[in-house]
């Protein structure tokens, strides 16, 4: 294998990793942007999405079914949680409340997954259509990962356009900047918040279904990924959608190239990156200083 094909393979690997991370991170940053809530439960929601997806695929025999059912189901659960638990707390002055609440949710949700699905991990077979490899500069690369890159790109562009060009997107951006004003202008801000929280959870769940053929669905996959999601959102800027895209790509590349070139430091590189960014720009690359 020559250097060019090797670098290309690594870059594509990094991008496919970034795609999965993006689905999780964009939900997290949207939720923070709208509600100023640091959603600790985001990893558990990702895990729930993976498990629901596995079950949906097992029952229906279709990967597409999993891709549709999991985000819808988990998004609905997210909206219910927001309505029942989070909404009463918006008036509270101290931010400790929602931290604890989402942390508690993370613990409860993880346990519920263990109780419902058991300790045995679940598999989600790579769909037949995406099962092969393509030769890129004479090196094999899985079609499934190309699919991930494509889907991530499409979703990123679609969401970006939605936020920039549509009325609903405008509303969401307005609420994240000045919710009182928007409320005074007659919009039901609570509804927007519920919808965005549900959407953020749906995206994380979608990430879970997409990750399942790569890592299988297992207990602890949530705790595993939540810290990565936080790092991405912090680097990109909490509340910035574009920041979550940039952050995902940066972290994907750091993880992949770090693992290859700096085996000993692989774990540390991501946090070093976060530190450097925060010291240079405390709000993150595209964020606003709090």
């Amino acid at each position: 294998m020559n250097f060019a094909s090797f670098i290309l393979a690594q870059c594509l690997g990094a991008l496919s990793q970034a795609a999965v991370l993006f689905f999780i991170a964009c939900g997290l940053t949207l939720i923070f942007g709208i509600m100023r809530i640091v959603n600790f439960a985001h990893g558990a929601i990702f895990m729930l999405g993976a498990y629901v997806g596995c079950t949906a695929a097992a029952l229906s025999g279709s990967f597409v079914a999993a891709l549709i059912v999991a985000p819808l189901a988990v998004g609905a659960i997210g909206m219910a949680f927001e309505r029942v638990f989070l909404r009463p707390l918006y008036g509270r002055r101290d931010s400790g409340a929602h931290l604890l609440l989402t942390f508690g949710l993370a613990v409860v949700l993880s346990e519920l997954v263990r109780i419902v699905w058991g300790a045995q991990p679940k598999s989600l077979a790579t769909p037949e259509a995406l099962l092969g490899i393509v030769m890129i500069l004479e090196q094999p690369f899985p079609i499934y990962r190309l699919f991930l890159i494509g889907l991530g790109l499409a979703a990123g562009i679609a969401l970006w356009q939605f936020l920039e060009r549509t009325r609903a997107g405008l509303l969401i951006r307005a609420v994240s900047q000045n919710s009182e004003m928007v409320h005074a202008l007659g919009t039901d801000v609570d509804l927007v918040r519920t919808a965005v929280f549900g959407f953020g959870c749906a995206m994380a769940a979608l990430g879970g279904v997409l990750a399942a053929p790569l890592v299988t669905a297992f207990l602890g996959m949530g705790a595993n990924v939540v810290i990565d999601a936080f790092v991405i959102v912090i680097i990109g800027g909490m509340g910035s959608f574009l920041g979550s895209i940039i952050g995902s790509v940066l972290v994907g590349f750091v993880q992949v190239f770090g693992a290859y070139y700096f085996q000993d430091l692989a774990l540390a590189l991501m946090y070093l990156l976060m530190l450097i960014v925060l010291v240079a720009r405390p709000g993150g690359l595209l964020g606003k200083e709090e």
Partner: protein
Amino acid sequence: MSWRLALALVAGVALLVPFVVPQYSLTVIVSALIFSLFAMSLDLMVGYCRLYSFGHAAAYGLGAYCAALILTHLQVPLVIGIALAVLVTVAIAVPIAWICTRSTGVSFAMLTLAFAQLGYAMLFRFRELTGGSDGVVGIPRPPGPFGIDWFQGKTGYYYLVLACLLGSYLACRAIMRSNFGAVLAGIRENEAKTLSLGYNTRAYKTATVVLSYGVGGLAGALYAGFAGYASPELFFWLTSGHVLIMVVVGGAGTLVGPMLGALFFVFLEHQLSQVTDLWPLIFGSIFIAFVMFFPGGILGLLRRRHAAA
């Protein structure tokens, strides 16, 4: 009941504990007291300065590993080793505090998290020194100085931890009631105004963070001497999450509240895990309930009942 009387009563009961409870319970109690110290140290930042740290495990882990390495390699007496560990932790905390206090709010929290995770990763990088995933095993409790060795047994160690806890509490309480604490109150309520009054708010915040790391480091060092073992889990973000829960559930900004939160947390986890393997579910539900219905934490609950009675 005056504060002094309450303190004397609690101290009195605490002194008698080793004679009343069985030895294996003492292990849990000592763990709970060490966590109380750890939680109290976080309260300095969270309750008195409104600086939410997601990385306080760094203080704990630093104290534990410094003590572990000092005691294992340098053969100094236990108390000297612990004191040295605290000094090293404080020294490392100064640049960390300085960098973190550049930001507030969520950025501050994330910076502290970054440092803690970095610490965790570094443990694996310097495997020869720290033992990597194995950790440091077989930490001794060397006697001295002057041949003092009553802390080598479990009962003796209990008194050592108790002394450190009471001493730290009194010291922190004194600091928070002094002018320093008054300035912190000003920063807490309205930082801009305090700044405009001429106070270097960043220096005050940095000092608070360093103090917080120092006391947290003391807790970590005591832990290392107690368990005889230091492992990477001490640095992990879950540890930071747990201690934050202890502070908020106990009642932030009171020093005593977080101690109660820690005791509650340790005993609840201990008892529940004996009874059922569904304990994390019950645990998480209790926290959610606290947040929803008892925002003042345990201490707030006790005060309300006391006021009503």
